[in-house]
């Protein structure tokens, strides 16, 4: 029997597969398609202190092997999420990870405090990498000093493990990862989307109302793998890998590059059952390449 269990940052996941933030809402819609208890973890849509209405539409565009999105962190606000969404999620025995966003350090702290106080969240994912909002988000994700400060402050505001979600829109991913680790991060999530643009020929204007959007899907998989591979030897905290995963083979590639677990985003839109299907396939693929456990595969591609 292949063991899919993963222990990381004090959490025990029954398998390394989870839906990525923003691509799975708060779980309700996808629970019509499969039993969410199958998931190793569930990552919620970003929460901000107040409700956010997001960017004008169109917010999504299809690209070769991927898509652009500029949702703009629309969410009901942390209090409504705690009241309306968390009770539903807490009935599942999967690890629940809340994605925390904000425009100021105080907002990150406040959201982290409120989520931690519920007792229904198992870990926080600090979103300092959203490319689609004017303020906050990515500015913390592009400056190691700011990333350090926001991570330290959130760590002080919570007893939960904190994963810092890194942006690929940086020149030096390793220094961002190290900054997060030094600030006390319990893990890293990588990567968020890559800033891109599409021009709409009929109007001769950018297609997205926000002009730019974040590229996701298979198109970014090689970038994500390269970044994880680069970061892995330089940190001792676990990495949740993501970016274009749509099969168990993809997931194993991420494990080999150094991820301890993986998140699946855009592929949910194509196939709402992609997560349970990958979980089912994973033991066979691990076996095929000579691994009896997930943990054996982690980082195997990297010369430490």
């Amino acid at each position, binding site marked *: 029997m292949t063991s899919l269990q993963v222990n990381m940052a004090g959490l025990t996941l029954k398998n390394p597969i989870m839906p990525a933030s*923003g*691509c*799975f*809402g708060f779980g*309700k*819609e*996808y629970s*019509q*398609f499969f039993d969410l208890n199958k998931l190793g973890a569930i990552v919620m*849509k970003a929460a901000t202190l107040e409700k956010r*209405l*997001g960017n004008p*539409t*169109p*917010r*999504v*565009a*299809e*690209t070769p*092997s*991927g*898509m652009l*999105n500029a*949702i703009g962190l*629309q*969410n*009901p606000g942390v209090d409504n999420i705690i009241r309306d969404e968390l009770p539903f999620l807490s009935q599942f025995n999967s690890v629940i990870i809340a994605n925390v966003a904000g425009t100021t350090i105080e907002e990150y702290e406040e959201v982290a405090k409120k989520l931690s106080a519920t007792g229904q969240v198992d870990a926080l994912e600090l979103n300092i990498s959203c490319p689609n909002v004017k303020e906050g988000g990515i500015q913390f994700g592009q400056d190691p000093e700011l990333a350090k400060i926001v991570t330290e402050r959130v760590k002080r505001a919570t007893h939960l493990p904190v994963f810092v979600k890194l942006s690929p829109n940086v020149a030096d991913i390793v220094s961002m990862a190290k900054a997060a680790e030094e600030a006390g991060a319990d893990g890293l999530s990588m990567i968020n989307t890559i800033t891109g643009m599409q021009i709409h020929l009929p109007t001769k204007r950018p297609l997205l109302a926000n002009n730019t959007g974040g590229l996701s*899907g*298979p198109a970014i998989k090689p970038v994500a793998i390269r970044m994880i591979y680069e970061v892995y030897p330089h940190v001792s905290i676990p990495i949740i890998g993501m970016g274009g995963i749509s099969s168990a083979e993809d997931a194993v590639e991420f494990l080999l590059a150094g991820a301890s677990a993986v998140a699946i985003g*855009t592929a*949910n*839109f*194509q*196939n*709402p*059952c992609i997560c349970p299907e990958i979980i089912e396939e994973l033991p066979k693929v691990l076996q095929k390449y000579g691994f009896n456990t997930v943990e054996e595969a982690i980082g195997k591609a990297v010369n430490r």
Partner: protein
Amino acid sequence: MKREKMTVLSISPLAKDTVEMVLKTKNAVRKAKPGQFLYFQLPGHTLRRPISIAAIDKESGTVTIIFKVTGKGTELMATLPPGSVLDAIGPNGNPFPADENGSNAVLLIGGGIGVPPLYCLGKHFCAQGVKVYSVLGFQSREYVFYEEKFRKLGETVIVTDDGSYGEKGFVTDVLHRFKLYDTYFACGPLMMLKAVTKQLEDVPGFISMEERMGCGIGACYACIIEANTEEGYKKICSDGPVFRAGEVLL
């Protein structure tokens, strides 16, 4: 809402760039209501394509869709031979309120590729003994489809932008001729919906909206439209695509 494989039974051109496709389905045909849509996966494409249900035939276990070839995805769909299998999610979204509505007579207002869901709705009303009037607008003669089918449901006026078929003008130019209906149902381009809802401000009505979608099931906040509600927004894929006129800001 389920994911299922549907088999193409027939595919035929209806008008310029307009294709009618009949699909054999097990689940969707049992659940589908007028106004709902199917969400199709196409090989080589990241995002699914939303297409409205144009007819439901419970006896033969089929649904009909009508789509306009406007880009890569619909181009590909138009080349699928009978026997092809399509991966679809559906039926998605909230339907037109066709059962609990209490109408005696309804006016259907369709523009271009907004016409198909209204046919499904009109048939439903007709079967309930509700009187159906239709106003259908097309760009020009070569785009006109389903005229005879709508005439079988009730009085129908066709308009074309350039006057090459039916009457010249927009649907809003002829709406005043219909007086004996209590609710209207409209689907078509945004400009048309704006004009219709303004002109028929005092009449109860329902409109069906379009937006570019990600998940198509209410999870990703891609397809948002501003609304006159406490929340301030609605999701077109799951709260819509059908809305009460005035509920969403056009």
